[in-house]
């Protein structure tokens, strides 16, 4: 009896030891699984993560030292669960379980794991660095997955079709857009990203007001391209709506009826499941389209035919444009994004002649060695100073002849990964004031010197005058609403709009923030807390400024992150963000990810706010009718009273309300336009993780236009 008692645990221990030995002998998968997984990876993953699993843009590397640093200590079941729940990006759980299993086994094999005899089920808890060392076997490295796996396609499908002018048509007439029109737009028009040069997203139309908004109804709708990210701003001039779609497709629609007049599928099909074109621009007789493959196209506004195209940067190296454009003095100004690899090149803002497409100037957003601000990168070689993307179009003060742009954070995300120590990493996360005629820097102000968490300060710069004081307001992911003097670039004031624990001090005179001590001291491998997390605070769903009430209405997102700095090999061509993330609820929010708050921009005090479970996913629109509009992740599109925040009307859309709400008028009738769509980076990805109970379909891209009944 005693012997038997002793034997049982011993047998169990021996069995466990032998299971462990088998697992360590090879990966927990068969050769057939990983071979089939290779073709499935090529078909479903390679467009974002690369044929060699090297990663690009926001898609992390799935092989090599970077992958092992991020995943080596984690288990195969966690990798499987993550891939299954969230991939393809924005379409988690859309493939069958066996496809996910095979893809994961290919990722393991591509990192040196050898096949074994057991079939991978997804439940195996094998520590990844016990079977994989990050070294890709020669036979896989020599024939990249995309080549060996058949035709690669985007993470989400795009309807096949030819490119070019696919629907020919012509506007009966077109009144060319002038500098005067852009500075003083007609009430009925919405000529640029945030409607006015000041970036207000405010319409002076008042036919729809707080008393009658409850009676608005659908005037028309129009299905848009699926298969990619979309954060559109419909642009309206003289009753024509110019609408940008996935695959850099531009359409001219009758803004009263939704009738298509012309369509140009510029292409290419989306190569990423994220990265949306937020806006196109009008100037003269042309429509200007900054595309996701980092080109700028000028289309004939009457026919949609290409007049000229200019390459902003080489898309084969990962560069893209998502921020849209602004037209100033006959030049088209655009930003650049996905500058997160180590290169001899750096991110820039550039201007192009509206008539010819010729480059007028470039302003590099990274300060290099020997340049002003070049000492803010801890003496890093120039090629390892990256980031400072400009993925939101700038604003403009005609009187000061100054254009204002925000920049993103330095790359990689964390100080430890990029080795920038306490340096400010100029001109990352700054406001830049530039001369639009020649790109000369007039002043800059660094909102987050030496940022550490993917907390961008890139968003819209809103220009407001308070008596003689010419101010600039902006808010970034930390959720601090900043007020600067836009003549001098000096700090004036700030307000905290939600809980944050990133800065433990903001100097009341200079506005310079001090990072928490443990953030300053963080090393590679440390998990460091950040509230808010990478979805903000405030993100691309933009603010609106209502001049009648002096209120800025701000969409906010409330969640936090633990971020770990992962190592990044210092080598040209290597790159990425190098941060692992774990999300958690923001303390004190009771699970409300969404918050809408109205701040008086003179006093910087909140007049009202409300919270809800779902975060907001559209920019805000305010109008002279005293009514504002905003949409959210849970498909709700609502009208609210600007002065009080009270909901006056709401409806549900097919999928997430998305993009930027606009208002326009045709023949005296006011319309409100909003998109439903997908994509959108962290503001969509984080709630997808945190709120699995909210379901929004993975299709349903469309534009919806509402108006009062005719009688």
């Amino acid at each position, binding site marked *: 009896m005693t012997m038997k008692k002793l034997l049982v645990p011993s047998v169990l221990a021996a069995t466990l030891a032998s299971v462990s030995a088998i697992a360590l002998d090879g990966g927990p998968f068969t050769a057939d699984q990983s071979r089939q997984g290779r073709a499935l990876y090529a078909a479903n993953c390679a467009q974002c993560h690369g044929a060699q699993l090297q990663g690009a843009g926001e898609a992390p590397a799935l092989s090599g030292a970077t992958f092992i640093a991020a995943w080596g200590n984690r288990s195969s079941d966690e990798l499987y669960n993550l891939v299954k729940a969230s991939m393809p990006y924005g379409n988690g759980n859309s493939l069958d379980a066996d496809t996910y299993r095979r893809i994961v086994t290919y990722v393991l094999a591509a990192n040196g794991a050898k096949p074994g005899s057991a079939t991978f089920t997804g439940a195996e808890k094998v520590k990844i660095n016990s079977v994989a060392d990050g070294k890709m076997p020669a036979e896989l490295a020599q024939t990249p997955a995309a080549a060996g796996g058949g035709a690669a396609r985007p993470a989400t499908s795009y309807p096949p079709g030819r490119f070019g002018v696919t629907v020919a048509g012509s506007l009966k007439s077109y009144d060319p857009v002038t500098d005067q029109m852009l500075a003083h737009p007609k009430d009925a028009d919405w000529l640029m990203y945030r409607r006015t040069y000041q970036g207000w997203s405010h319409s002076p139309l008042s036919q729809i007001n707080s008393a009658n908004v409850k009676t608005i109804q659908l005037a028309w709708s129009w299905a848009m391209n699926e298969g990619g990210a979309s954060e559109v701003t419909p642009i309206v001039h003289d009753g024509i709506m110019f609408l940008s779609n996935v695959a850099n497709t531009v359409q001219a629609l009758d803004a009263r009826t939704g009738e298509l007049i012309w369509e140009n599928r510029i292409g290419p099909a989306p190569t990423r499941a994220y990265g949306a074109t937020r806006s196109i621009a009008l100037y003269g007789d042309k429509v200007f389209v900054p595309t996701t493959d980092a080109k700028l196209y000028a289309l004939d506004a009457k026919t949609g035919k290409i007049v000229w195209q200019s390459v902003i940067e080489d898309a084969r190296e990962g560069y893209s444009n998502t921020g849209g454009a602004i037209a100033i003095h006959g030049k088209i100004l655009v930003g650049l994004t996905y500058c997160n690899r180590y290169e001899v090149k750096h991110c820039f803002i550039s201007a192009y002649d509206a008539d010819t497409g010729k480059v007028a100037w470039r302003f590099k957003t990274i300060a290099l060695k020997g340049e002003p601000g070049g000492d803010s990168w801890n003496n890093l070689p120039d090629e390892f100073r990256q980031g400072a993307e400009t993925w939101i179009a700038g604003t403009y003060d005609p009187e000061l002849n100054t254009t204002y742009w925000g920049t993103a954070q330095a790359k990689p995300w964390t100080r430890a990964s990029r080795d920038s120590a306490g340096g400010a990493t100029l001109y990352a996360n700054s406001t830049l004031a530039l001369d639009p005629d020649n790109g000369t820097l007039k002043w800059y102000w660094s909102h987050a010197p030496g940022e550490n968490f993917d907390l961008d300060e890139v968003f819209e710069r809103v220009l407001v005058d308070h008596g003689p004081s010419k101010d600039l307001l902006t808010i970034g992911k930390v959720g601090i609403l900043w007020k600067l003097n836009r003549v001098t670039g000096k700090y004036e004031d700030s307000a905290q709009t939600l809980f944050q624990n990133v800065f433990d001090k903001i100097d009341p005179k200079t506005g310079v923030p001090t990072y928490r001590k443990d953030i300053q001291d963080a090393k590679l491998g440390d998990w460091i807390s950040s509230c808010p997390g990478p979805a903000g605070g405030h993100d691309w769903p933009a603010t609106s400024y209502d001049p009648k009430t002096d209120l800025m209405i701000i969409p906010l997102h409330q969640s936090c992150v633990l971020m770990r700095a992962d190592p990044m090999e210092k080598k040209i061509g290597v790159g990425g963000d190098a941060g692992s993330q774990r999300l958690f609820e923001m*303390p004190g929010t009771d699970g409300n990810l969404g918050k809408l708050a109205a701040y008086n921009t003179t006093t910087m005090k909140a007049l009202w706010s409300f919270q809800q479970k779902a975060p907001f996913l559209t920019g805000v629109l305010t109008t002279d009718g005293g009514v504002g509009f905003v949409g959210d992740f849970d498909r709700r599109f609502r009208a609210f009273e600007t002065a009080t925040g009270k909901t006056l009307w709401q409806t549900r859309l097919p999928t997430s309300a998305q993009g930027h709400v606009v208002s326009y008028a045709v023949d005296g009738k006011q319309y409100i336009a909003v998109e439903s769509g997908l994509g959108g980076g962290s503001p969509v990805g984080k709630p997808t993780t945190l709120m699995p109970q909210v379901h929004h379909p993975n299709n349903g891209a469309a534009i919806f236009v509402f108006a009062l009944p005719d009688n």
Partner: protein
Amino acid sequence: MRLGGVCALALLFAAGPALGAEQFESRLSPSPLTDGTRVNIAGEGRARAELDGNKLTLNADFHGLASNATTAELYDGPGIGIPGPKAFDLTVTPATSGQVTGSVTLTSRQAAAVRHGHFYVQINSQKAPDGNLTGWLLPPHPEASQDVPVAGPGFLPQFDVPAK
């Protein structure tokens, strides 16, 4: 009769908050989350705590875990939303729903940390041994009604950024 009345009064006090004690509360939510761990880290709960001098008494309920709770602990972080070291063990129902209870005596520094919102509750489970539900203990605040505007910014726990 008189004794019975005193006992009833004592019971009433025992059941309710101690006179002059400070109250704290928290929603307990799944964390830390990734798409890879979400399958094992689920559920929610609510914790209430009372600080009477240096004595902290905590009660919480939870439900919806993906596996049975194993342990529950009080942690002493360096700030709101910032993880720190474990300070005390609590008692937890070993099930997917149940209660957490505990009564601990704090040092003066720990009591001050509770008042600053630095303490948090963590429930661990079989499938999430390093954290399943977490919540920072904060002063009582009205739970935001969905879509209902309030004056001002709403409940806004302050870190150490000085208010103007």
